[in-house]
């Protein structure tokens, strides 16, 4: 008898727990079902022989290879930029401003305004319509600075034995730059969040013990941010793979030249080859899934490695 209320509570608890988890995962489940359905109907639309035929097509092979290469390059560039930028933004945040300039209201307000401005500017590529990024890049490379960079790039490629790459615009470097412009913004945001969540006291302690800033960053902050860096890399990579608008405008859609998987989908669709477009989409999805899983396994050492 004495146990009855406990059992009742336990039974009610189990029921409400079941209800809780079902209702909470219901909406997510719907979204999951939508994604699975999208992939399933794509597979239904295209037969295996279609996929085999596509994979034997040198143009598809070219676009797969170029996609993998440019996405990886864009992701590496993004990480190189995102890690220091994210660290600076995290460590020079509101707390740091309060700590250092708390007694000087004018400077405090100015520093906070500057911090907000930098944050907003770095988020621009995320909120801009992709086509605008493409047009802006195109216009940028028509300025004297842009033309000089174009010229320098052409000279560099010519010097290393590839004179056919005539600068940046409408060439492979344009793809990487278009992907990097957007992907880096996502990577920076991820790295900023990562560093913000890492307690800075160990770094301060290391500083008080006489360690230099670079050493503290390298030996204390960076090891703790490793899973975040992997997340930022995969996010940048995935974002680059799906990039289309800026590539369309800034790099063009020349077959076997600046053709990545997203442009293969577009070109097939535009040429009335819906089946080809669906097959290219499936290849895109498959490549993305394989690479994302492989990245997580390799860099984090196992399926749970990324959990923090």
């Amino acid at each position, binding site marked *: 008898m004495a146990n009855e209320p406990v059992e009742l509570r336990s039974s009610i608890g189990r029921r409400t727990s079941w209800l809780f988890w079902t209702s909470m995962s219901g909406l997510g489940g719907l979204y999951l079902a939508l994604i699975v359905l999208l992939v399933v109907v794509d597979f239904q639309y295209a037969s295996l022989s279609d996929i085999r035929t596509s994979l034997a097509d040198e143009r598809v092979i070219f676009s797969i290879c170029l996609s993998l*290469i440019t996405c990886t390059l864009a992701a*590496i560039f993004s990480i190189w930029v995102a890690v220091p930028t994210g660290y600076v933004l995290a460590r020079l945040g509101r707390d740091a401003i309060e700590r250092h300039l708390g007694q000087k209201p004018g400077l405090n307000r100015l520093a906070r305004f500057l911090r907000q401005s930098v944050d907003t500017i770095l988020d621009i590529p995320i909120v801009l319509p992709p086509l605008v990024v493409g*047009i802006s890049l195109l216009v940028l490379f028509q300025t004297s600075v842009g033309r000089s960079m174009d010229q320098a790039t052409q000279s560099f490629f010519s010097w290393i034995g590839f004179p056919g790459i*005539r600068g940046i615009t409408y060439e*492979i470097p344009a793809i990487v730059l278009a992907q990097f412009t957007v992907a880096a913004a996502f990577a920076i945001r991820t790295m900023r969040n990562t560093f913000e969540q890492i307690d800075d006291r*160990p770094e301060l302690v290391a500083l008080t013990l006489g360690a230099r800033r670079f050493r503290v960053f*390298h030996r204390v902050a960076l*090891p703790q941010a490793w899973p975040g860096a992997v997340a930022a890399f995969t996010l940048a990579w995935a974002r680059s793979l799906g990039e289309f608008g800026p590539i369309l405008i800034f790099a063009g859609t*020349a077959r076997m030249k600046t053709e990545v998987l997203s442009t293969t989908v577009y070109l097939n669709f535009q040429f009335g080859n819906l089946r080809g477009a669906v097959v290219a989409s499936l290849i895109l999805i498959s490549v993305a899934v394989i690479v994302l899983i492989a990245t997580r396994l390799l860099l984090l050492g196992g399926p749970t490695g990324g959990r923090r």
Partner: protein
Amino acid sequence: MTLRRSPSAARTGQVPFALVGMLSIIVMILLILMALRLRPDAQRASADDTNLRVYCASGIAKPVQELIDDFNERMGARVEIVRTGGSGELAGQVATEFESGVERGADLVVLADDLLLEKGRDGESIAEIFPAAIQRPVIAVAADSQLEIDSLADLVNRPGLNYGLTSNRAAIGKLAREVAGRDGLLEPLEANRKTDAENVMTLAQALVTGNLDAAILWDTTVNQLNQANQQPVLKIAALVDPQDEFSGEVGLGVVSTTRHPTLAIQFARYATAPETGNPTFRQFGFTAQPGDQWEEVPEIHLYLGSMFTPVLEQQVREFARRQGINVYPRWEGCGKLVASINSITDPDLFPDAFLACDFRFLEQVQDRFESPVTISSNEIVMAVQRSQAEGIESPQDLLASDLRIGICEPEQSALGWLTRQLLSSPPYAGLYEQLEARSAVTVDVGPTLVSQLLAGGLDAALVYRSNVMADPQSMQQIEIISLAPSTHSRAVQPWAISKGTKNRQLMQRLLEMIVRSDTINRFEQAGFQVETPEKD
């Protein structure tokens, strides 16, 4: 004191980050080399020097791609489609590239809307236009559909019908709305449509996948999709405009900033020639518009009155260079040119076009030329040595003094003929015989008289204003004295294309060059009055 590490730090702390950084740089270098190795053309210095970049409207991309493949194989050229999309979208990009000064943008653009090309030419982003084919708007349904739609009115007024048309930015959408506007159906067309796709191919795919019951497409899009699939996927239910008043004109536009104008024009000629381009367009269901006969390097013969030499000689040379053609111009007095036209027996030597000094000369051979276009007019003036000019106000004054006078021969030149007419009718009636009797010299063309004035051999001459103004330095020595206005005091210059020419479009482009603003400026600087070109 030792630092406490978080569990993840404990694990990852062993990662040598300097090594990771170095590795990432090595990986980047390797990836860049791999990307470059993917492109065989990257190692060739001339890869892009001869590349012609084409932007092509998606609905026309198939025949254009086939033509490009043929052309590249035949000519060893490197033409390639680098961008497809809706006509409006591509025209917009070309305009953006033109305005922002993009160096390696499009060289050639193929659009399904001739008005967009015209707009591009007005905005100076497009230099030459080549009409290629006609396509008609149709109401399309799925190949296995049981729907029977017999007209545009039926489509827009049938309740519950899922139909789509493209936005106004695509040529087909604009044209469908024009037809609907004419038939008073615009309001229901807009109100009942289910989608507003950006380009015709997107709309067609929506119909193929069953998202729509019907759609307004080009007849050629239906053909193209049926050819792209193993079995027909669409069929035409009805024509949008059975009266055939509205149709879409596919055209190629050479971008004004292209670095390869000659190659672009050569490909455009190939794509529109009856022997090469037309069959390919027909194969894809288009009604081809015949351009000029295909010749790798066309040869044209031009007859031009000598008065045009200072204005057009250089322009014609530049035109020939840009178009990649051989031009054989004859700059002579129009009497001689007419005599030559009448005596030519070899059709290959017959002039493809004639720019006459006056209508009178063209009229003598009009049966062999198409309707003329007025280009300019030129005023007859008295050109007098400045030292002798005092007191001379009219042709009578030339007789009153002891001046050495020069005139042109009336049978050999328009100037001579007009001079005779002018001085034989009021207010100068009866003066011609006296002046002819007093003239020290009678020549074929006006420039000769000006040369003699400059050399001091003549004191006065009756010439065209342009003869004197052709050389700005001659104005320092010669004074121009205007004559009283009369129907014969002005020569009007017509342009006419030969009826038998194989290069009608080429001649049309030459005319476009002649009436272009920079050439008009040259005409005006040379003393011509430029007429607004119109068919007479």
